[in-house]
């Protein structure tokens, strides 16, 4: 258990009087909810909390920085490209591809650093400027570590080229030398300049032998020659010119052991660190990480980075890349998934906590074979859908991954919302997308209810144009056909209308509750001058009527209402019976007579 370096910082929640009332909190994926409770510390009389708000507290400022967003988006593209690299590739071509990916990641980090540096310089508020500057140094440290990992683990340079890579590495990160050169060479008499001799030390590591030296005897020259011959003590004397211990390490190796083998690196690294620090200060987290890298302890590198950095971006992407280099043995964590997947899951979950970056998270979950899919299923249902367009994007993601449950549930939410807003066409459109027959039935019932209440159809543009969607549910089919019946009646195609009406009842797609309405609709057809329903059809209608009246359920309404309803019902039934009987009579006569008469 790590000990705390100092006291944790206290954050005051505005509006909450923590001295009077107790607060409660709950952790979320990237943030915390805090609110005041009614529990009072001292008196028991106060029951109402004075602060009515719930606060969301976020620690992770990284995700919200505008410039870092570019890092997340660009690296997402690189990540996807890496996953799609042909698994068949082996040997040199694969290695060169992986190195290229690593360099891409690093260039993205550098671009981000550049931009942040520009902003830091241009910042009007010094506190802001400091914040950006510290962000720049974090990014710089990240790039330093990544670069070293690239050299040691991905490039895997053998002894000889190894030192050249390390030289490049140090050169890239020690900008001091270049600014010094410009200073010294610009002055009138370079050899008399104080820094000239100091430059010699740096210059040896950075520029090789290209700087001219005059051969005057001087203690400086002696010192230089000693260094060139590998005298470490002499080198140490010039400590203040070397910005850090790894600069010292590489310089030392250049003169004492330029063909150092990778496995021997860590001896030199450890001793360089000890010599450089000289027991005055203790190593910083960055030093430990670099040391772990020199020791080829990848797991330690990742572990230390996870602790030191506040965001999962770095470790997730680096671990994924190293995994592609087949360097990580399956380091099983207690819940069984390996380290790469664990880090990617953490990173992607963090992305989902952001209102906008969740779309990136989807692709990361795709490449987590064990828990990726189930994590995605849980996260995607919780994305707030405030517009239809966003909902469509989420649905597309679910459909592409055959997450039918999530599609149904999202469509159901949207359809319900549409019904509540009286947008029945939208509701139907969502139920068609989800192939949700039950909901289509609900929408149709709404239409039918509206028809019964108002006596006419709303949204005819929808019902008249259902097309094949009509087959989705029986109720919907009924709705479409019923509307067709009305259309036919309007066009005076009585015979067609009559047989359609009958088929609606006999085929049982009409709900029982609607049969009375249908039979009532038949009345005008029965009362027409010409006989429309044949005898056979009239028998069918009678059968339906008897079916309906015999099985009337007992309602539990009040007596007076019951009586009134019964009255209306009885009148209707009587009228129907009369019309049907009359029609039957006329039909029998007509059918019994000779044709054409």
């Amino acid at each position, binding site marked *: 258990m790590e000990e705390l370096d100092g006291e944790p910082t206290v954050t005051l929640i505005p509006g909450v009087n923590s001295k009077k009332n107790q607060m409660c909190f709950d952790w979320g994926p990237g943030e915390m909810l805090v609110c005041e409770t009614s529990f009072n510390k001292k008196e028991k009389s106060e029951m109402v909390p004075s602060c009515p708000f719930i606060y969301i507290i976020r620690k992770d400022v990284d995700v919200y920085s*505008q*410039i870092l*967003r*570019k890092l997340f*988006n*660009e690296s*997402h*593209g690189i990540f996807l*490209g890496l996953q799609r690299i042909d698994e068949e590739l082996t040997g040199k071509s694969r290695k060169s591809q992986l190195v290229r990916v690593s360099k891409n990641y690093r260039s993205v980090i550098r671009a981000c650093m550049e931009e942040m540096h520009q902003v830091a310089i241009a910042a009007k508020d010094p506190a802001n400027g400091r914040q950006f500057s510290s962000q720049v140094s974090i990014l710089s440290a990240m790039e330093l570590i990544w670069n070293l990992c690239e050299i040691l683990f991905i490039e895997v340079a053998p002894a000889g080229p190894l030192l050249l890579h390390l030289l490049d590495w140090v050169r890239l990160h020690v900008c001091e030398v270049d600014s010094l050169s410009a200073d010294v060479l610009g002055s009138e008499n370079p050899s008399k300049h104080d820094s000239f001799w100091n430059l010699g030390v740096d210059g040896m590591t950075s520029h090789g032998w290209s700087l001219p030296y005059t051969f005057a005897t001087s203690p400086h020259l002696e010192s230089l020659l000693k260094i060139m011959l590998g005298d470490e003590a002499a080198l140490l004397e010039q400590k203040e010119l070397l910005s850090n211990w790894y600069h010292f390490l590489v310089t030392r190796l250049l003169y004492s052991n330029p063909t150092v083998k990778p496995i021997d690196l860590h001896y030199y690294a450890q001793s360089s660190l000890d010599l450089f620090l000289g027991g005055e200060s203790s190593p910083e987290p960055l030093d430990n990480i670099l040391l772990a890298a020199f020791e080829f302890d990848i797991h330690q590198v990742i572990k230390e980075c996870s602790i030191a950095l506040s965001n999962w971006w770095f470790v997730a992407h680096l671990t994924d890349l190293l995994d592609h280099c087949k360097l990580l043995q399956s380091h099983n964590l207690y819940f069984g998934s390996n380290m790469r997947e664990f880090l990617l899951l953490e990173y992607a979950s963090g992305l989902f906590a952001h*209102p*906008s970056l969740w*779309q*990136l998270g989807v692709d990361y979950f795709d490449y987590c074979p064990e828990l990726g899919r189930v994590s995605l299923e849980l996260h995607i249902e919780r994305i707030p859908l*405030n*517009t*239809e*367009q*966003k909902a*469509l*994007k989420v649905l*597309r993601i679910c459909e*592409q991954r055959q997450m039918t449950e999530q599609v149904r549930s999202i469509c159901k939410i949207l359809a319900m919302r549409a019904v509540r*807003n*009286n*947008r*029945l*066409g*939208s509701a*139907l*459109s969502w139920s*068609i997308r989800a192939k949700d027959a039950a909901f289509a039935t609900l929408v149709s019932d709404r239409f039918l209810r509206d028809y019964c209440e108002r006596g006419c159809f*709303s*949204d005819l*543009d*929808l019902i008249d*144009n*259902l*097309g*094949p*969607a009509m087959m989705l549910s029986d109720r919907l089919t009924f709705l479409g056909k019923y509307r067709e019946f009305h259309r036919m009646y309007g066009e005076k195609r009585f015979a067609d209308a009559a047989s359609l009406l009958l088929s609606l009842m006999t085929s049982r797609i009409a709900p029982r509750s609607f049969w009375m309405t249908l039979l009532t609709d038949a009345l005008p057809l029965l009362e027409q001058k010409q006989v429309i329903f044949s005898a056979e059809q009239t028998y069918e209608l009678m059968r339906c009527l008897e079916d309906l009246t015999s099985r009337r359920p007992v309602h539990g309404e009040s007596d007076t209402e019951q009586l009134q309803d019964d009255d209306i019902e009885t009148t209707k039934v009587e009228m129907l019976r009369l019309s049907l009987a009359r029609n039957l009579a006329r039909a029998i006569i007509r059918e019994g007579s000779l044709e054409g008469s």
Partner: protein
Amino acid sequence: MEEIYAKFVSQKISKTRWRPLPPGSLQTAETFATGSWDNEENYISLWSIGDFGNLDSDGGFEGDHQLLCSIRHHGDVMDLQFFDQERIVAASSTGCVTVFLHHPNNQTLSINQQWTTAHYHTGPGSPSYSSAACTGVVCNNPEIVTVGEDGRINLFRADHKEAVRTIDNADSSTLHAVTFLRTPEILTVNSIGQLKIWDFRQQGNEPSQILSLTGDRVPLHCVDRHPNQQHVVATGGQDGMLSIWDVRQGTMPVSLLKAHEAEMWEVHFHPSNPDHLFTCSEDGSLWHWDASTDVPEKSSLFHQGGRSSTFLSHSISNQANVHQSVISSWLSTDPAKDRIEITSLLPSRSLSVNSLDVLGPCLVCGTDAEAIYVTRHLFS
């Protein structure tokens, strides 16, 4: 298609539009506007691709696009249109329609006019007020027509506080896009696959014509009218299908072209070369459809560089009487002669391409990967 420049801008781009050039101008497009979505704070921004004179050792390097100014926008930017040289109309997910004014002298944007309750489910008067997203806006100085998720069509006039005309419940489903056919006619597309033509001269609340696809009622997301032939309209659907319609002929599309693998968000005829059509989609691709018949190398299937082209002969579902002296190549019926060349313009698959716009040789598009792509050499 030579160079296409990408720039990551830290916001998901929902709409990109070129600023129109003054009539008769010989310049190429220089400024475009973008709208963002899905952020806690969304912005309308103006960008410039003017030459910044950066020449590197290769010579002739054009600078990428630079931000001129931006202004906070409440809600997602659902649609964006330039009203004139200085004014931009934006449709919001909160149901609000705003006209922004650009001040070129100090490079700022300000709100010129706003209709805050243009679209709603239950009205502002009632206690259960609920707003609805405004999904589409189209301008024809001085008129602005908007449509929304509430199925409502509004006709606004700049500098009039209230709507000139409102058609409530014009559609029982969501209206996704609107375009002018001939003033005063507009055409809308909805989420049950119908095109409806509305005539503002008529008093009623019924469309003057309804067209729809046969078969499945696939929602239609975008529509664009042919710049010269006002009866030719292209629509894009949720299944990525591109349909070409002749609104004078029947109620079904003239051609159906299988295009993208996911929703087609925008379709645009090139305003000065209407034989060229551009579509962009949720599947992360942007396609250039070339139906011009005078390119000699068209028969070659092999192209250099990173271009991928396929040939597609389009199917005709409605062989109507076509007596036209100027036959639009999109409507012509000879499959053997008329082949459409399709090119994918983006270098690699990205997240959804939400929007595109073309003006002259310039194309701009915006994606959900928070990148804006610009090219100034569409036809090279």
